[in-house]
């Protein structure tokens, strides 16, 4: 896809789905090259996209839905009404997307199973300890153990993506 000039791109939910897959493989490629910090950064983006796409798919948004300012502003407003406590941090916060997904499912009377909800919470806490969007400005030393924990968290999200939105 060619980038249009400036920030007038109309990125859709389907674009986010494709980017979710791409960032996973990008992260894996960096890990194969021994670039741990870059790997964790991209896997974190992948995790963010997992949660974001699961949330909007649960809402039954069509694939062509633009992820634009109006949609995100309305999502932030829903979060207020649904009692979500995590701030969205530019809509990159893993805790925000996890909490609003859980809250939205409860409000729609289609809650996650207690087991999946508990595991999602643990997974997101684990990932949020090692990743935030601010890593784009940092190149921290990243031990192998941290990469392994992030990989485990991302693996859980991937395997349960369908369960999160179905």
């Amino acid at each position, binding site marked *: 896809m060619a980038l249009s000039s400036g920030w007038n791109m109309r990125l859709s939910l389907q674009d986010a789905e494709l980017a979710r897959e791409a960032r996973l493989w990008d992260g894996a490629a960096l890990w194969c090259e021994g670039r741990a910090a870059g790997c964790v950064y991209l896997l974190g983006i992948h995790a963010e996209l997992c949660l974001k796409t699961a949330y909007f798919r649960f809402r039954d*948004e069509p694939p062509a839905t633009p992820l634009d300012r109006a949609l995100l502003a*309305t999502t932030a407003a*829903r979060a207020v*009404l649904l009692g979500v406590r995590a701030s969205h941090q530019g809509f990159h916060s893993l805790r925000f997307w996890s909490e609003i997904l859980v809250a939205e499912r409860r409000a729609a009377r289609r809650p996650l199973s207690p087991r999946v909800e508990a595991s999602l919470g643990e997974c997101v806490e684990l990932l949020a300890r090692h990743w935030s969007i601010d890593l784009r400005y940092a190149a921290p030393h990243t031990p192998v153990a941290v990469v392994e924990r992030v990989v485990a968290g991302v693996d859980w999200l991937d395997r349960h993506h369908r369960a999160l939105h179905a």
Partner: protein
Amino acid sequence: MPVVRKSLRSAHPHHDDLVEELCRHLRGVGDLPPLPRIVEDQDALSSHKRVYVLWPAWDSVVDGERAVIILEAYERALGTPEMLSVSVAVGVTPREADAQGLDL
């Protein structure tokens, strides 16, 4: 010193009045002035709708709180399922609508 925690929900001094006025329009009760005008744009591919509210009163309300007020009115007047069916909630003043080319 006491800690004062301000939430977005109560940021505007007339937040509840604005919600109530929108509720009155959503319920269609009594004589209603032409504004606020609530325009619902139904999505053909899903059960969702985009809601636009044209209202001079938005002038003193920050962008983020406008959507909260609209969704809160839907929930209060029509119930939670109806609120959840609102995919996008946009509040604009007549001047903003003109500037953005919105035909409401």
